[in-house]
């Protein structure tokens, strides 16, 4: 990279991978972290660096999202790689793992190549595709996992749909071992969720909407953990949402089973009551659950039972949501509201700031393992990629349709004020988002 060096000065530098949380300066050069150290002590360079003042701000590794939907190819009316990566940069993310439920799905080398190519030419941050588990996401035969790995996928998932056939899941966990990539499970026993619209419970009963019980997630989580134990495969549970799932992962980890898990900001902050009034923007799968579930998810994060926070950014066009609740699409647009939502939990004293950053950086890097981990994603160690997020933990902003860069305006937070605002995002030593910049 031939960019000018960047010196970020005066900020509070938090890098959980190095157990750092103090006032430090950071010097980026040639696309990598060149130096970090005491304020004002940066080595001088032949070319003067661009200086970014970060007083009162937090400086941390760029966030890694293990789970988002960029919708391209096939659903460009909902999002594109161009808009999705810009929304990600605005949210402080420098790496997005995109889910393969596109059209065509990412079940072949050609489609993975297409996404990687598009991301290079039109994206502004790193896109790491996730390949399908099964051909066409049909849950019948395995996708060509080896060739997908060669093409550059960082994991496998049929996300949006579960792998209902236990034998196929077993084979996926076995076969993927050869490439040391995680199999990411969307846990949902569909015979229990068919026709479901929201969490099964008192609110669904009141609203006359068919519920999706937490048990539908938990029974498949239990099945997949058992299969991970059997096969020794790498299992990652996507978007766990219930207290029961947290307990299953906790016990599995205690037994040394190779399982990791993620949780979304919306499952950490919102309950089923958001659906009252039939707000289709609160319709999401897995559904928003209860306060009890939130408490367990937070505890799971604190203990390290849950490794990562992932957005499950699921943008939709207005027409997909402006309709009867039962006909509306599932999903919340989440890349841009993630940090603000999580800062609410920090401000309430539920989570430490350092922990939140860990679960957005070193946590997801650890889940990915392999090349992303070795290449230094999720940390600001010298030599790591110069992926940096600078945010104002006190900066307030109003979530509105106009305020979102993503094509997906579908968030139940519309009209809500969030505290926690990204000031600048640097990817590979280049500023890709700056607050207020056109």
């Amino acid at each position, binding site marked *: 990279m031939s960019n000018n060096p960047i010196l970020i000065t005066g900020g509070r530098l938090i890098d959980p991978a190095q157990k750092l949380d103090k006032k430090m300066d950071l010097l980026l050069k040639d696309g990598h972290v060149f130096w970090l150290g005491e304020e004002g002590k940066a080595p001088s360079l032949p070319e003067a660096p661009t200086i970014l003042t970060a007083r009162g701000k937090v400086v941390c590794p760029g966030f890694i999202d293990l789970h988002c939907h960029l919708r391209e190819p096939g659903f460009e009316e909902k999002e594109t790689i161009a808009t999705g990566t810009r929304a990600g940069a605005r949210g402080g993310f420098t790496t997005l793992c995109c889910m393969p439920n596109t059209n065509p799905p990412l079940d072949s080398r050609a489609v993975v190549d297409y996404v990687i190519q598009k991301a290079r030419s039109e994206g502004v941050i790193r896109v790491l595709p996730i390949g399908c588990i099964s051909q066409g996401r049909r849950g019948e035969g395995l996708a060509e996992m080896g060739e997908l790995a060669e093409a550059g996928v960082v994991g496998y998932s049929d996300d949006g749909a579960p792998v209902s056939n236990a034998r196929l899941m077993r084979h996926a966990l076995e076969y993927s071992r050869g490439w040391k990539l995680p199999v990411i499970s969307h846990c949902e026993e569909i015979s229990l969720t068919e026709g479901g619209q929201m969490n099964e419970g*008192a*609110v669904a*009963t009141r609203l006359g909407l068919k519920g999706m019980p937490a048990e539908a997630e938990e029974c498949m989580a239990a099945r997949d953990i058992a299969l991970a134990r059997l096969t020794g495969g790498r299992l990652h549970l996507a978007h766990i949402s219930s207290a029961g799932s947290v307990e299953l992962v906790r016990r599995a980890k205690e037994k040394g089973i190779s399982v990791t898990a993620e949780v979304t900001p919306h499952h950490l902050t919102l309950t089923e009551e958001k659906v009252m009034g*039939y707000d289709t923007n609160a319709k999401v799968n897995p559904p928003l659950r209860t306060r009890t579930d939130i408490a367990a998810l937070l505890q799971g994060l604190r203990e390290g039972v849950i490794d990562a926070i992932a957005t499950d950014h699921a943008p939709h066009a207005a027409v997909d949501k402006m*309709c*009867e609740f*039962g*006909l509306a699409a599932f999903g919340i647009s989440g890349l841009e509201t993630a940090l603000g939502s999580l800062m609410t939990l920090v401000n309430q004293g539920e989570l430490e700031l350092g922990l939140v950053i860990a679960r957005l950086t070193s946590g997801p890097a650890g889940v990915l393992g392999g090349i992303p981990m070795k290449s230094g994603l999720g940390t600001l160690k010298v030599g790591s990629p110069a992926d940096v997020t600078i945010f104002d933990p006190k900066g307030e902003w109003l979530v509105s349709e106009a305020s979102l860069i993503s094509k997906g305006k579908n968030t139940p937070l519309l009209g809500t004020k969030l505290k926690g605002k990204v000031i600048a995002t640097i990817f590979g030593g280049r500023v890709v988002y700056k607050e207020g910049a056109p």
Partner: protein
Amino acid sequence: MRPMVQREGAPPLSETIPEISTSVWKHNHILDLDDFTREEIELIFVITDGMKEILSREIKRAPTLRGKTVVTIFFEPSTRTRASFELAARALTADVLNITASTSSIVKGESLLDTLRTIQALGADVLVMRHSQSGAPYLAARQVNMSVVNAGDGAHAHPSQALLDMYTMRSRLGHLEGRKVVIIGDILHSRVARSNIWGLSTMGAEVVVCGPPTLLPLYMNEDRAGGQLPRVTVESNADKAVEGADVVMALRLQLERQEKGLLPAVREYVRYYQITQERLARAKPGALVMHPGPVNEGIEVSPEVSHGANSVIEEQVTNGVAVRMALLYLLAGGKKH
């Protein structure tokens, strides 16, 4: 399509019920009974009394809603509810337009909104809407500038039915406070049950819901209701449930429930949940037997009970027109519009 011109001699409503103040009325829409106060429901009853008087006249018509347009749109089949709203609107001299939307036209996208905006552009004042999707009338109320009356949405609510049920109970029993009302049947999928639970609880009645355990929601019991629903007693044994009841209300059983595996057999439902003479004998003497219709003959209620002395099933239908007149009057007849 236009109703007959108002005839000489039929006094306006104000002459019939001159001293009623509608100041307690707070609603622009009737979507659910969960936000109705006792005073509002009492007001509906009192106005319904006046409407019944109008309906007893030789010329069953008052000019109250003259120049107003009521549109009914039903995305689900209905005979009595639709006819009842239409008669109610005509009796108040409103223009009535009935739109039938086939269920197959409910497709994803903005189609419902397009339809609603078209109706609005035609100049409707009140929209009476039935839809198979819970919450669809809320979308209507948010997006268009008309008063919306929910004539049944999915498994959610059917407020005018509950009001006519309660009105019928009140006219037979005098008051609802402390009365024991048992609702038997497919509570899980019933909008009639949900609206009655809200209304009856607000009016101080004791509600018992009863049905096969697979058709009883797990979340109506106080311990799992989380304050989302009024306090009701959940009982799967029909003999116990009807003990000492003032009212026994049977719900229509959708026969496809058996296909979905929720019931082993209709035969078994009849055996354990049909309202028979023997079961009814456990209720209070003279207990009312109700059914929102249409009745599956010989399934929910035995024929002798259905046509027997305790049955007020036909009276429910008759009262339905007067109750709906009261609702249309309150929405479109006041000074607000």
